[in-house]
């Protein structure tokens, strides 16, 4: 198991190095100007991509375990949407303060993500797990509500704020270079700490696969676990959204593929998702900025991978009696 994680970490390091180099420049003829460019622009961007990918993938893995449904994902469930609505509301209301490297935008995104999660839990929960239909429909409704809030806030804004807000809708890492470095560092640190904290609940997440009552009867503090995981996930989603906007499907694809590779045990799945999500988004963002002559929002790439993947999952799940 430690070997698996070392392999994942090495892969991440390699991916980050290679992707930092890639960008229509010849890596073999580095001059100082390009070296500066790498340090100032591309390295922070790759670091943000890694942090956001790790956060979203870990959230996806945790949501899936918590809701006992393999289709849960912060984007599909409307949690990212809640975070984006919070972020846009902060722009509209001109909330602007810094709090240990966290902007008012991040705090507001956290509030939005947490609100979305609480709504989701209130409406989408059945007695034994969460049915796929209810879950996805609740996510659709939440996303619609948050889009309406975002549109409302944007129609009340002046032009400069609109263009700022618009960037959060895109799910792009392009604006990442606008962030101050303390903000980037704070984001990366929060993601690392939260993901490590998730591990403390990994064993209980395993027990939850047997149902909440059985998990409690096997010694898990179910309510405490749920509360802690919800807060951690809302925080992770908020950091991801405030750094890069709502990027979809990372939390769906990555844990799914990793469950096939490392198995469903959350004690190994969560750290694997941390590295796997980081690798996935770093690669996706590198493709987004180097595939075409103009840069694509990375959300386009992940949605183009993730959308068909979700459809395929729905189709294959439909054939199983348990869904």
């Amino acid at each position, binding site marked *: *198991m430690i070997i698996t994680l070392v392999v994942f970490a090495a892969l991440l390091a390699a991916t980050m190095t290679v992707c930092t180099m890639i960008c229509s420049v010849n890596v073999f003829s580095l001059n100082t100007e390009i070296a500066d460019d790498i340090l100032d622009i591309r390295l922070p961007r790759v670091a943000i991509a890694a942090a956001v990918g790790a956060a979203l993938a870990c959230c996806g893995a945790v949501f899936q375990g918590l809701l006992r449904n*393999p289709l849960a994902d912060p984007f599909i469930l409307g949690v990212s949407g809640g975070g984006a609505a919070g972020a846009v509301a902060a722009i509209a209301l001109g909330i602007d303060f810094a709090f240990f490297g966290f902007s008012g935008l991040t705090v507001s995104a956290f509030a939005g993500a947490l609100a979305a999660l609480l709504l989701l839990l209130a409406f989408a929960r059945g007695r034994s797990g969460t049915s796929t239909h209810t879950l996805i429909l609740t996510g659709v409704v939440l996303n619609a509500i948050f889009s309406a809030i975002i549109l409302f806030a944007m129609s009340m804004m002046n032009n400069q704020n609109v263009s700022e807000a618009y960037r959060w809708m895109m799910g792009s890492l392009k604006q990442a270079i606008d962030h101050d470095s303390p903000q980037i560092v704070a984001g990366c640190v929060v993601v690392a700490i939260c993901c490590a904290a998730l591990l403390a609940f990994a064993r209980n997440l395993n027990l939850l696969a047997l149902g909440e009552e059985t998990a409690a009867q096997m*010694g898990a503090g179910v309510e405490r676990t749920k509360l802690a995981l919800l807060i951690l996930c809302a925080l992770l989603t908020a950091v991801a959204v405030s750094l890069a906007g709502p990027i979809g499907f990372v939390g769906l694809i990555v844990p799914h593929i990793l469950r096939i590779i490392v198995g469903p045990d959350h004690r190994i799945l969560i750290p694997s998702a941390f590295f796997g999500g980081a690798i996935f988004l770093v690669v996706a963002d590198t493709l987004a900025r180097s595939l075409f002559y103009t840069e694509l929002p990375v959300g386009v790439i992940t949605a183009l991978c993730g959308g068909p993947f979700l459809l395929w999952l729905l189709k294959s799940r439909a054939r199983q009696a348990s869904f």
Partner: protein
Amino acid sequence: MQNVSEIIRLKDISFAYGAQPVLDDISMSIDEGGFVGVVGPNGSGKTTLIKALTKVVRPHRGAVEILGKEISRLSNRELARAVSVVPQDTGVMFAYTVAEIVLMGRSPYHGALSFDNEEDLAAARSAMETMDVAHLGERLISEISGGERQRVIIARALAQDTPIMLLDEPTAFLDLKHQVGIYGVLRRLNREKSMTIVVVSHSLSLAAQFCKRIVMLKDGRVAADGPVRGVMTKENIERVFEVGVSVDYDEKTSAPLIFPIPQE
């Protein structure tokens, strides 16, 4: 005066879902090494009784003591080291292997970050051997048959290494051979490890064959409680289940055999 060997004690337990009373003033005590069958019609409170013993539902009145301790003062972990449960619903999310499921039974002995040690592996192995599922270790829980899965779930409860095991209809959905097999294992655990067993059952004859004591519930109350032959009488069963029965006695074991009589 507290009996030393008393392992479970219910004192005037009442519980209601909304206005609907489910458990109505139930008191009983179960001694260490007991093998108690709980029977009764649907909705008589059998499953709720099991849940009340494990803090899944909290009685509105009364108290539950396990090993002499009030359970509301025990943490889930402490309780899970005393009582293991085989639930009615054995659905498992995600593709866990049989061995992984059985090892989950060791959770009450672990902190958040510790991994399974030699002792856990040994406990899981021995539980799987007892339940005759050791050969299924690497198979996925979703791929095995219903009878195998029920044995795996019991193995998981065994790996929990508790003095008390509660089972909620462990033989529902199983064929006759597997039903008898499961009860045979329960009897062995009861005799060899003097494990205290409380089993909710819809099969009166099976409960009568294997259990030492029967508790009959009706409308959330104890309708009859005592040794098998004293409780499993034609009068009691007809009163509680509201169906005509004939009661015969097994030639060899002299355990009651219950047959429903179709009404014209």
